[in-house]
């Protein structure tokens, strides 16, 4: 059970959170302008790195805020969290 540091509530049990997949995949500005291939890339393609990954979490059983976390997918270590709109910090 990870202890995930909600940027608002502080460290809470993983079970209080929902996972939201890769961070910084913005909804396209003008979907109609995209080719089917570009749109499919937005819909279906995500990175799957071994190592530090910027991903989204929602503190769904707590403050209900979405935020971003830098998690090492190999060690489960969370290197930092940041609120929506804040720039991605440099992983330590």
């Amino acid at each position: 059970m990870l202890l995930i540091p909600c940027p608002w509530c502080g460290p809470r049990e993983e079970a209080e959170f929902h996972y939201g997949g890769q961070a910084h995949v913005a909804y396209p500005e003008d979907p109609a302008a995209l080719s089917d291939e570009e749109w499919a890339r937005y819909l279906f393609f995500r990175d799957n790195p071994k190592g530090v990954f910027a991903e989204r979490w929602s503190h769904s059983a707590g403050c209900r805020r979405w935020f971003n976390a830098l998690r090492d997918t190999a060690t489960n270590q969370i290197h930092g969290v940041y609120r929506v709109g804040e720039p991605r910090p440099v992983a330590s």
Partner: protein
Amino acid sequence: MAERRSPAAAYAGRFEAASRGEALRLAELPFLTQIDVRVDPSSPAAGDIGDALGVPLPVEPGTAVRAGSGADEVTVAWLGPDEWLVVAPEGHRLELLRKGLGDRHGSIVDVSAQRTTLLVAGPRARDLLAHGCALDLHPSVFGPGACAQTTLARAQVVLIPREDGFLVLVRSSFAAYLAEWLLDAAAEYVA
């Protein structure tokens, strides 16, 4: 005509029985006023809502303030960076808060019947809650002035520690489940 009914009304007797010893006091505090307040904490509207409540909205995450007394008593719990839960005796005037907000951006929603309030008190209250709550309930960490939205057993709750015990605010549909769970966990302390 039937009377209105609170979600844990059927448990009054068993709560009372579990409260006969020294260890625990369990009760439903029915029909409290609960208001969900959404507003930008840095806006003038937030200040005006605080004035209407008689206490500023707490901006520190995980904190709650309690002010006033008697019919004017309010507890304001931080639920999120722009969300608070006001808990007050029955009949607290929602309109005052609406007036405080005025036509500025924000929302004041009556959620009095959305959750009911269970009181978990007595010397073993923390031990009882620790059976189902993963938060550190140590008084140095989670004493009066704190609050948390978290899970107790398998139900989401708002937990507000006070001098006289914990307020456990639970969704009405989960009230019976949580009451059964509390009574089952209490067996260890009340036998």
